[in-house]
């Protein structure tokens, strides 16, 4: 009767939002339990199947002002179940371990002070009673892993673990049943407990980093507004959008799927996919690209393909691929662990034989100690734990790792080459007057332009918005796509836009100042405006931070030298070059790398494809799915540059941590083996030593993920927030 469902709630920013959603879901009849987690944006609901439906719950979320998104449910479910069963195993192992230790300690004490034989046997049997469920329930994953390894004819670290457990347990049971000899129930339970605890921590770190990445890929539009035949609009998950569906796209929203336009006209920014920075006007039944932003009024379209085939699906696919690949360092460590496990087995056999010849009573404890203490768990945990923690940290600050080795290379970077447009500048234009007809007021001219542009959806229109005056209004404004606007202000017809367009109205001023937007009426040109893109917010601080990290900075842009120089000067960057073609950028990067520099290239991922692929390590700004082909190593989810310095810093400390971990694991294993082989280490001490070495490695790595989650919220804003790049004055 009870159903369980977990889904993501988009748009939540704080625990208050979470409470609102919780309350709203809680009011649905039949809901038994609901928890909404603000930091992971996850809601989990248990409800009575017969009294409520998931649809009602989703409606409740929408009523509270948020958007529910169904996750891949099986994945979330599997994750939850894995966590639950791991917790139970640890719990059983912990409880069993404490009990077993108590009885075994009583036996030790009894051995020293004298103990009644019947009591001694009783304690042994009790120890067996507690150790048995620990081994067969909590220790089951190790045996399963060892079996898997053996079937593949490979030696993983589960093989010596399972071997040690089986050996210790079998000998103990044998000794228990015959009523004399050493028992190792305490070692068995401790080993199982600490090892399970270590693996649990590792699993949590890994799942968390996966979730963080997933949350980011969800900042792409996860749902689409599908119009039903009866005219109603339903938000459905993107994955369920089929070819032929009618979608409604709000102003400013990302068009989620490729399709053709049903509305009269549309203004779209396709710079995300095609790199075309000028917003395009599309007529009825024109093709619209998934990933484009609808800049104009709300539109309708009919999809031409399913969402899975949309270009926008590229990013998500890219992320999944990146997660499936494993860093080369981790692969090396895995191989090393495998070899190490083999050595352990050989060594343990050698120790058993040698002690068998010298002192058979010590053969078993020494062999067990060697098997346990040399478990290469720390070695194989060292890299994955570090990478997982660093990935978590990075995705929290809005940087996704697309190539497995990007982290390592990012740490070694010494020079940063920056693209200008879309990277340093934000695509929000400002207007200034270049030419003003004699005797007229600049304020008046700007106000007229603002009035004409008020109803325009063109991105450049926003440049004039600050200059609007309430006294100046325009009537009958008309937009001429790609040319300009026309309207009547104070009884006179005005035009604002391209020179030729305005010249049609006032031919006598045909060759007024060149460049910029021209404002004129039938009595002549009043003014021309220079529209300029401003530095993106935080660009100055971000550049300064990169400089503080000791990185050399170079700006390379296809824009005019004048524009590039202006930006470079504002940022205090001395090395810059303008009018560089994409191939020119590649040549520049190659030249720098030829001189021995390790270059981090930051670009928009569309025009900069070749240079991103050619740089030592590259970072694309998430401006659509074309980045799937751009060959970037890292992806900036926001249009802000500030996460780059965080990324470099994190990568550097990750590399340091990785080295510390590997060194520690090696030193520990190598120094512990002789001690164990000489029989100086009791098996239970070995169990603690082995587990502690793994926990130290995981804890050291976890420092990277850190408590720093200042940026958690910003990462949810997403790709759709990317503004069109309109530095080069678009044709009007």
């Amino acid at each position: 009767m009870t159903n369980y469902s977990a889904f993501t709630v988009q748009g939540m920013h704080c625990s208050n939002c979470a409470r609102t959603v919780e309350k709203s879901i809680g009011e649905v009849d039949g809901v038994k339990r609901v928890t909404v987690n603000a930091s992971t944006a996850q809601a989990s609901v248990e409800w009575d199947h017969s009294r409520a439906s998931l649809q009602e719950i989703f409606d409740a979320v929408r009523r509270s002002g948020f958007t529910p998104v169904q996750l891949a449910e099986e994945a979330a479910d599997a994750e939850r179940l894995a966590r639950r069963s791991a917790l139970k195993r640890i719990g059983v192992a912990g409880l069993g371990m404490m009990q077993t230790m108590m009885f075994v300690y009583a036996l030790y004490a009894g051995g020293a002070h004298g103990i009644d034989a019947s009591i001694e046997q009783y304690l042994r049997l009790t120890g067996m009673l507690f150790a048995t469920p620990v081994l067969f329930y909590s220790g089951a994953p190790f045996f399963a892993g060892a079996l898997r390894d053996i079937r593949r004819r490979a030696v993983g670290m589960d093989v010596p673990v399972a071997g040690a457990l089986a050996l210790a347990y079998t000998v103990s049971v044998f000794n228990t049943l015959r009523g004399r000899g050493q028992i190792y129930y305490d070692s068995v339970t401790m080993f199982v407990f600490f090892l399970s605890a270590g693996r649990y921590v590792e699993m949590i770190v890994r799942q968390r980093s996966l979730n963080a990445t997933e949350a980011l890929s969800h900042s792409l539009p996860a749902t689409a507004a599908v119009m039903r035949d009866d005219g109603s609009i339903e938000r459905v998950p993107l994955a369920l959008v089929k070819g032929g569906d009618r979608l409604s796209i709000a102003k400013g929203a990302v068009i989620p799927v490729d399709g053709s336009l049903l509305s009269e006209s549309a203004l779209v920014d396709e710079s995300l996919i095609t790199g075309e920075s000028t917003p395009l006007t599309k007529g009825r039944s024109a093709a619209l690209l998934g990933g484009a932003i609808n800049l104009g009024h709300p539109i309708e379209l009919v999809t031409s393909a399913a969402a899975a085939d949309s270009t926008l699906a590229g990013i998500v696919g890219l992320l999944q691929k990146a997660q499936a690949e494993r860093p080369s360092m981790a692969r090396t460590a895995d191989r090393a662990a495998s070899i190490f496990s083999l050595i352990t087995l050989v060594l343990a056999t050698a120790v058993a034989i040698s002690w068998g010849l010298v002192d058979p009573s010590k053969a078993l404890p020494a062999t067990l100690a060697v098997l346990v203490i040399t478990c290469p768990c720390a070695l194989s945990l060292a890299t994955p734990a570090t990478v997982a923690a660093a990935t978590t940290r990075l995705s929290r600050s809005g940087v996704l790792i697309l190539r497995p080795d990007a982290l390592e290379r990012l740490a070694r970077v010494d020079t940063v080459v920056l693209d200008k447009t879309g990277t340093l500048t934000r695509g929000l234009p400002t207007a200034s007057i270049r030419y003003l007809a004699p005797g007229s007021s600049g304020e008046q001219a700007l106000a007229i332009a603002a009035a004409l542009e008020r109803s325009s959806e063109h991105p450049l229109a926003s440049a004039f918005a600050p200059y609007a005056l309430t006294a100046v209004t325009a009537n009958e404004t008309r937009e001429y796509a790609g040319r300009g606007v026309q309207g009547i202000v104070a009884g006179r017809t005005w035009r604002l836009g391209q020179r030729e367009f305005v010249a049609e109205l006032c031919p006598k001023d045909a060759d007024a100042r060149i460049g910029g937007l021209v404002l004129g009426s039938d009595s002549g040109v009043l003014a021309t405006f220079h529209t300029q893109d401003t530095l993106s917010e935080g660009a100055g601080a971000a550049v300064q931070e990169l400089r503080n990290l000791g990185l050399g900075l170079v700006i390379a842009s296809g824009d005019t030298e004048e524009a590039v120089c202006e930006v470079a000067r504002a940022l205090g960057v001395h090395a810059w070059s303008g009018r560089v073609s994409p191939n020119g950028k590649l040549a520049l990067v190659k030249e720098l790398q030829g001189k021995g520099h390790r270059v981090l290239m930051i670009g928009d991922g569309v025009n900069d494809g070749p240079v991103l692929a050619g740089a030592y390590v590259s970072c694309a700004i998430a401006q659509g799915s074309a980045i799937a082909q751009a060959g970037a190593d890292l992806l900036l989810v926001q249009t802000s540059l500030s996460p780059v310095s965080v990324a470099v810093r994190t990568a550097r400390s990750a590399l340091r941590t990785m080295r510390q971990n590997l060194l520690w694991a090696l030193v520990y294993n190598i120094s512990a083996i002789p001690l164990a082989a000489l029989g100086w280490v009791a098996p239970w001490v070995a169990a603690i030593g082995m587990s502690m070495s793994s926990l130290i490695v995981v804890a050291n790595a976890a420092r990277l993920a850190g408590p720093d989650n200042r940026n958690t919220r910003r990462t949810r804003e997403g790709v759709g927030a990317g503004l069109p790049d309109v530095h080069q004055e678009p044709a009007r």
Partner: protein
Amino acid sequence: MSIVFLLIPLGIVLMAASVVALFWAVDSGQYDGELEQEGRRILDGESDEDVTTRWSPRPPT
């Protein structure tokens, strides 16, 4: 010393009870979310009527 013949079985019963309690707690989802969240809930300062979270009395099927 014969008291241990009574106390140890008692301990075993207690152990079994703790394991059952643990399994119930895990299965009812108490450890699924972030553990800090439930603590924070108290500090959010709402009266009892507002608390919408209800623990189901038995493990979910």
